């Protein structure tokens, strides 16, 4: 018997008796011999808890992580400090182990959390309705594309190259299923979305335009102008945003954006080598009944007590089936919980203080490195520079357990020598100077 099952020989006897079967094998009689596996599956034998722990600890030890190196990697996921109370709350069985709250009477905890999450996202995005989470950032962008299709029945999606490469990729992948095409809009010399190009790309058949705030290179976009250009022909305006940066940036909802989506990792979620985190999806009131995923709503019980339920479920696959607004079922409830707890921890003033610290350090870092900036304009949490000897820098840095950031070359041939540097509240001025010294080292050499 495994440590997770409880059937003793005595139990087995009683149970087979009640079933009226002679053996457990009999229970599988419906499976044709021809498709039965006539051997053991080829996997190593089971291990004790201690051995499994040791094995996984050994694997983990072979990864260089944000505690074992000084990292300036960002490009979509960022090394923010996650307060201890989040670990504690997420480890509670009451939050960790239940399924989607199909029985609201015994799920008020999870449902109220969703309602609070929706409120916080609505506050940040400036849009009145939010769902309770989608998978993560890039697929949230793709989900916005599907809503645009259902809403407009048009077949073209226009995306800024400032949109995260993974978001553009996910959008293209999904668009094939939607029967839509994706057209990309270039960036200006200062790495902001080219408004004219965007305006030019939008036509009568355009279902939606997509851009990101701040964009993939950290540039603060002029959302208002982009939205106006995108809206011209009745296309929906979709903005992907960093929710933490929205603590000090003007909400997309106040600038003509119809749908704001994004990656929630920056809100109290771990790096986890890329997931699980959560995606958020907020929109204007008129899209309420076209939203993807779970939405919690407030109501009353038979005794008149305030309560919360999953609402507008007629949008969803389990009711609407082929007519559903999206196929999503399991989403990211636990990660969204971390998100709303994190936002409540930061609070009204804290999110501003944190974002301003990030903002100032980012600008300070860009100067400190003394390299040619790819985006010399306003940046929030990240910036791109050209590095004469990128390989050399990485070699020197790696030797000192420093990770200089993300190399833009693979996604942006136009920035072959580009380095994307991310700054958070965990990267101190000292850390920044350390990177600057590594960058300067060569300057030293060549001087």
């Amino acid at each position, binding site marked *: 018997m495994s440590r997770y099952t409880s059937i003793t020989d005595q139990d087995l006897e009683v149970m087979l008796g009640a079933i009226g079967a002679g053996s457990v094998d009999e229970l599988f009689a419906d499976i044709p011999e021809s498709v039965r596996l006539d051997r053991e599956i080829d996997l190593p034998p*089971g291990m004790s*808890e201690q051995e499994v722990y040791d094995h996984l600890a050994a694997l983990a030890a072979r990864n260089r992580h944000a505690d074992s190196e000084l990292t300036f990697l960002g490009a979509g996921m960022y090394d923010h400090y996650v307060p201890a109370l989040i670990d504690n709350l997420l480890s509670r069985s009451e939050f960790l182990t239940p399924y*989607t709250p199909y029985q609201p009477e015994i799920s008020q905890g999870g449902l109220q959390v969703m309602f609070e999450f929706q409120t916080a996202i609505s506050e940040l995005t400036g849009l009145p309705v939010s769902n309770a989470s989608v998978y993560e950032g890039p697929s949230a962008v793709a989900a916005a594309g599907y809503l645009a299709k259902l809403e407009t029945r048009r077949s073209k999606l226009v995306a800024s190259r400032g949109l995260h490469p993974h978001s553009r990729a996910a959008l293209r992948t999904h668009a094939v299923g939607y029967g839509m095409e994706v057209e990309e809009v270039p960036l200006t010399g200062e790495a902001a979305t080219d408004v004219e190009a965007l305006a030019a790309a939008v036509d009568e058949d355009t279902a939606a335009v997509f851009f990101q705030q701040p964009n993939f290179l950290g540039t603060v976009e002029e959302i208002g102008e982009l939205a106006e250009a995108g809206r011209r022909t009745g296309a929906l305006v979709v903005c992907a945003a960093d929710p933490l940066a929205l603590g000090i940036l003007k909400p997309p909802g106040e600038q003509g954006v119809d749908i704001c989506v994004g990656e929630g990792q920056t809100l109290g979620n771990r790096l986890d080598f890329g997931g699980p985190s959560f995606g958020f999806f907020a929109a204007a009131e008129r899209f309420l009944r076209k939203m993807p995923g779970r939405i919690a709503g407030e109501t009353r019980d038979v005794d008149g007590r305030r309560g919360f339920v999953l609402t507008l479920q007629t949008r969803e696959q389990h009711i609407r089936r082929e007519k559903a607004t999206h196929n999503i*079922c399991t989403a990211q409830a636990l*990660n969204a919980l971390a998100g709303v707890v994190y936002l409540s921890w930061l609070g009204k003033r804290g999110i501003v203080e944190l974002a*301003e610290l990030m903002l100032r350090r980012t600008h300070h870092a860009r100067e400190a490195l003394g390299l040619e900036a790819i985006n010399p304009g306003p940046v929030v949490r990240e910036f791109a520079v050209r590095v004469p000897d990128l390989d050399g820098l990485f070699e020197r840095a790696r030797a000192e357990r420093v990770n200089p950031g993300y190399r833009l070359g693979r996604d942006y041939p136009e920035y072959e020598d580009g380095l994307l540097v991310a700054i958070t509240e965990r990267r101190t001025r000292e850390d920044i100077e350390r990177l600057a010294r590594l960058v300067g080292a060569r300057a030293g050499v060549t001087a």
Partner: protein
Amino acid sequence: MTELDPRANEEAVTIFERSRAGRRAFVPPPTDVPEVPISELLPASQLRERPAELPEISEPELVRHYVTLSSKNFHLDEGFYPLGSCTMKHNPKLHERVAALPGHARLHPLQDPEYAQGALELMWSLQGALAEIAGLPHVSLQPSAGSHGELAGLLLTRAYHEERGERKTKVLTPDTAHGTNPATVTMAGYEVVKVGTAPDGGVDLDDLRAKATEDVACLMLTNPNTLGLFDRNIEEIARVVHDAGATLYYDGANLNAIMGIARPGDMGFDIVHYNLHKTFTQPHGGGGPGAGPIAVSDRIEPFLPTPQVLRRGGDNGAGRFVLDHDRPKSIGKLRGFQGNFGVFVRSYAYIRSLGADGLKDASQVAVLNANYLKARLAEPGIAEYLPIAFDRTCMHEFVLSGSGAKEKLGVRTLDIAKRMLDYRVHPPTVYFPLLVDEAMMIEPTETEPRERLDDFADIVRAILEEAAEDPEIVRDAPYTTPVRRLDEAGAAKRPVVRWRPPAAPEPAANDGQ
């Protein structure tokens, strides 16, 4: 005791209503760089004018708020949770410990693979284990959940057919299919065609043959199906589907019934998705996170998403692990980065904990538990009211019909489910699958001891006796839960989907509590 419980009618209070201006749980690290005015760093056009109305609250009250909320949830570590089709098996605490190791939790997804060999080896090993379990050679871990895996499966099917120059417009799904199946079909740009169910609960072969036409791209099937029955005709089904040039897709939600016993790949399935949050025990988290890896046959492999984790060089573990982005025929990316790695860690730990026989044992006990509970619920005093929908040996779950209770006792499946809440067990999945009247879909899972199954049978009997005595008792249930039946219709008619300050703009300061 309500009259003696002074807190009986206490109202729920949101975190926003607890806010008081000036309080804080967060203290920022000191600003160690020049305090340049924000207006010099950000264009006025993009400056937020008024701060987002986030709560202002101290740490002690923040903790109390969410701890108190949590206690309003029923959960798996509290009691029996036979939610059909969801495989609510125990979530080992070890998994949370290994997932939290800094080498996992603090690893950046864009770390140079050279410095993430441990993580890539883990993914590679998990791919191998999943491939062996499903009997299909190639695995992508990328999809975020089962439905995401389904979408991947149909996009792969489309790519496969397109490369062969075949134009297909329809996808077949049984009328017992889970909602995500048809929803996925539409999202993937196909038209849904329903296939009927035969008297024995399996696919109606004649109907299938009739509908498996040239323009069909795929049949999506779960086997055992959502009735908990293994389709004996699976080989014939595969033949029919393949003869039509369509792919056979395996919805892996029910894989927990057959690990180490039979494999979708051996049954003729071309594409499989796994629900790591079901079969491989990622905690459900109140609705995620999960992961929906897919396994495919050789002919589908070229189209798998990017990146793929590969091992280059020495087969004696000496090899290096790489992320392969160079896949010209790939459907591309379904999401960011490499998928829900934190989920992979847990499921990998699970597979290594159980090993080959442990996994087989899990499936055997899952099926044993289901059949035992089915037998207990077939006893007189229950069976008259809750007849089994299809009376066959079931796999890991089975479906009862509340039709008898409705007619003879005047209580519906919903009423019985609500009354179960007072008995501190989670009700089964109800009103699914759709073709069963007043359906009650029961999946005990292998991690339940016999006492829990007996206890549940006794509860069902007790509720039916209550109903026989006075149906009101059951119809008005629950009574002991934090709230009682909620007005869902009203919630949908006049949706309130966020909290709003009674008196903007400074609500938090004055109202609430």
